[in-house]
């Protein structure tokens, strides 16, 4: 029954969100603004960062538990070179990977919410990229774990809207 209520709330939000108006307090907020991420001019510093993130993700694949979390946290701490637009996508995907690892830890859901909520804030524009959707879904999973139904429904609804936009882009 709880799942049904959550799904119903998310579905209702999908319709309301088309207006992108702020909902009443305590209700799911599915406002979504997106922007396209254009490839930046490649630089050696940019390459070093992108390769470092790839190395961190690859290393984390082979790890489990706290060691995996630590490796991904180190990746999140890497300084981002100026002008590297792709970093926005890489950091969201890295944060989603970290969030998924944290969700396997005791009480990790609260940490995930603290990590991801500001990164995909409803007031901010998100990259029109599947990394944004992945971060939103992970946030939704965390919110569902702690029974924050409004945040879960809003996050899932935003993820679905974003992926719908992505599908439309792919069709064009």
């Amino acid at each position, binding site marked *: 029954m709880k799942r*049904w209520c959550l*799904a119903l709330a*998310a*579905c*209702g939000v999908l319709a309301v969100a088309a207006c992108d108006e702020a909902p009443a307090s305590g209700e799911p907020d599915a406002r979504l603004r997106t922007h396209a991420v254009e490839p930046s*001019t490649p630089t050696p510093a940019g390459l070093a960062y992108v*390769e470092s993130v790839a190395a961190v993700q690859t290393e984390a694949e082979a790890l489990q538990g706290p060691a995996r979390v630590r490796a991904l946290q180190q990746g999140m701490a890497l300084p981002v070179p100026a002008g590297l637009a792709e970093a926005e996508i890489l950091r969201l995907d890295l944060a989603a990977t970290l969030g998924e690892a944290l969700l396997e830890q005791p009480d990790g859901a609260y940490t995930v919410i603290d990590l991801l909520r500001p990164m995909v804030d409803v007031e901010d524009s998100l990259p029109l990229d599947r*990394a944004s*959707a992945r971060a939103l879904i992970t946030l939704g999973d965390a919110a569902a774990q702690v029974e924050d139904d409004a945040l879960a429904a809003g996050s*899932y609804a935003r993820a679905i809207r974003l992926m719908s936009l992505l599908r439309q882009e792919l069709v064009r």
Partner: protein
Amino acid sequence: MKTTSETSERSVIAEELAALGEAELTGSDPLSPGDDLDVETVATLVGIATADPASLPGLSPLAQRRVWKRLEGRVAAAAFAPVVDDPHTAAANDSGGWRSIVAGLAMAAGFLLVPRLIAPSSTEIDVAEADGGAMDMGPDARAMLDALGDNGAPRARSMAADYAQRLAGNGGNTP
């Protein structure tokens, strides 16, 4: 005491039930002037999509029967004759809020069905779980995400390789 519009509504429903060969409308049957048969029909279709029609809110047994009869009628009519809608049922509603919720349900049902149709077998929805829990937005959203492409390490490696290639090409703007 019934209002004029309610009496009129009951009269229309009675004619409709008679045309469908159903039992007459009784005084105990609930009558909601805000109900919209099109909305109820969409809600029922969404119920089918979610494999849990029994949990649909706001559909009385009479309303559900009307919806099914309408669907059956449309199927039969499509096979033998053109369908002529009753304009009264389309116009008689003031249920904007309910309509928006149902529109949302229909949208979500569409979104959820798309990956079921196009996703590879590794990302298919767990049918047993769907049967047990109506809709579980998280796994379905993940199935949609997986259908869009790689994430995590494989994607980071791919982006790194692409970036290196662009740098080697003297800063071309190929995505």
